């Protein structure tokens, strides 16, 4: 079983986190795009479809909750898996309210991010 190459959208307002995650996931063989907030993420999804969205909770212009509202109404993105990464307190309940498939609290180990993503992606035989 090998892991499928996935299309991953990293939505994160902190530039360092966003750029580093994008780079690392690209090293893992994924096709990765970045967005600084929910609004930009929706723009990315207009032109490109993702298998997984890595989503920060609190962002300027459009936060995770508002983004999810919009995302759910897009036929091509409604069922895309979502992993929440955040430093917010009560992250678990926020992730639950968001209907996220997984969540990781900041700060996190890179290995944990990679493992969690691997678990969320379908495997090809």
């Amino acid at each position: 079983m090998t892991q499928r190459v996935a299309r991953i959208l990293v939505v994160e307002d902190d530039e360092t986190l966003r750029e580093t995650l994008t780079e690392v996931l690209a090293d893992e063989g994924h096709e990765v795009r970045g967005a600084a907030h929910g609004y930009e993420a929706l723009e990315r999804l207009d032109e490109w479809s993702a298998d997984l969205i890595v989503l920060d909770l609190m962002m300027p212009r459009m936060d995770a909750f508002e983004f999810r509202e919009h995302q759910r109404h897009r036929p091509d993105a409604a069922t895309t898996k979502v992993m929440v990464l955040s430093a917010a307190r009560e992250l678990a309940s926020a992730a639950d309210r968001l209907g996220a498939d997984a969540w990781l609290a900041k700060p996190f180990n890179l290995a944990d991010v990679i493992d969690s993503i691997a678990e969320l992606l379908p495997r090809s035989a």
Partner: protein
Amino acid sequence: MATQRATGSVNQRMSGPQETVAGDRPAAETLTPPLLRGEVAFRLLVDAVEDYAIFLLATDGRVLTWNLGAQRIKGYTADEIVGRHFSAFYTADERDEGRPMRLLAWAAEHGRFEDEGWRVRKDGSRFWANVIVTALTDEAGVPYAFAKVTRDLTARREAEEQQRTLLAEQRARAAAEEALLARDRFLSIASHELKTPVASLQLVADSVARARESGRLDDARLDTGLGRIARATRRLAALLDELLDVSRLTADVTPWELAPVDMVALTDEVIARFTDGVDDGRIQLAAPDVAVISGDASRLDQVLTNLVDNALKYSAPPTPVDVDIREVDEGVEVSVADRGLGLDEASAERMFEAFGRGSNAEHIQGLGLGLHIAHQIVSRHGGRIEARARDDGPGAVFRIWIPRDGGAPA
């Protein structure tokens, strides 16, 4: 006749001026004209009233009549009090000040006097009284006696005080709860803000290690990683500075260094620091050549930095941030105006409290302590700081005023 001595006419008009009663026991009969039948009934009514002390005073202040209410409220029987001076009902302090006779003089001049205050019972205990003194005058308008009606409002006053205490307690509890909520909000913001650069540091370190393991770590990648670590570290240091600034101001450990400060030169320096970065050209300064006040330059630098940083943070490029410096009212005024999110009235009031960030600021980076720090520093210079919405469209204006010579922090 004891009953006659203990009562008096309530006629407001009498045939002539009465003699002032003299001696230890007043001959109240001398004041009493023949009573009409209706007056008898009225006197009996007054005698029987228990909730009000109703009695007459002679013009020199001696008690002429007494009723049941007076006995109940003040504790004296008619025999004990009639003929004595009414100042016995006042506290020693008020007697010493001559207040009782001043009140009668006032009533004589104005016809009536109403008063609320502590009065003294026969046993020395105090009660809260409402007192109305009415001058009874003859046809020439000259008072021949005073009617005094006293109510015991102690119970009402105690109830009011209880109510006040209760309200004060409720307010204190609400304030304490709000302080807890504010602290909670702050901890939420602080933990989120502090964890973000820490997450960056960890991720970048992990990613560099992973790149090395997989043989992908070249010089360019290492440089990028080190640059990101430096950026996250600066961010973390700035947040910690902000936290420490607040605690330093609160604890007041660092001495203030007062010296002449040219606010124009200082503002120039602050703006130059910002225009090194991405906000080039957004800040527009209008100022005289110099505007000197007495103050602590490094702390005023902090105020200006916070205000400019705030304006840039809460408005989007390329909208300008206007900084205006003017000499006003024996001092210097600096206003910083942006065209950003603006602020509502409720936010403007809370803006300078610690953790009192505006309601529209949830997603703005930083701990939200900058304006609180600015407020503390400006106040210590004897100055003023205010925030308001722009009159001419969206955006906010922050204005500080520092007195020219007032910069002597306590």
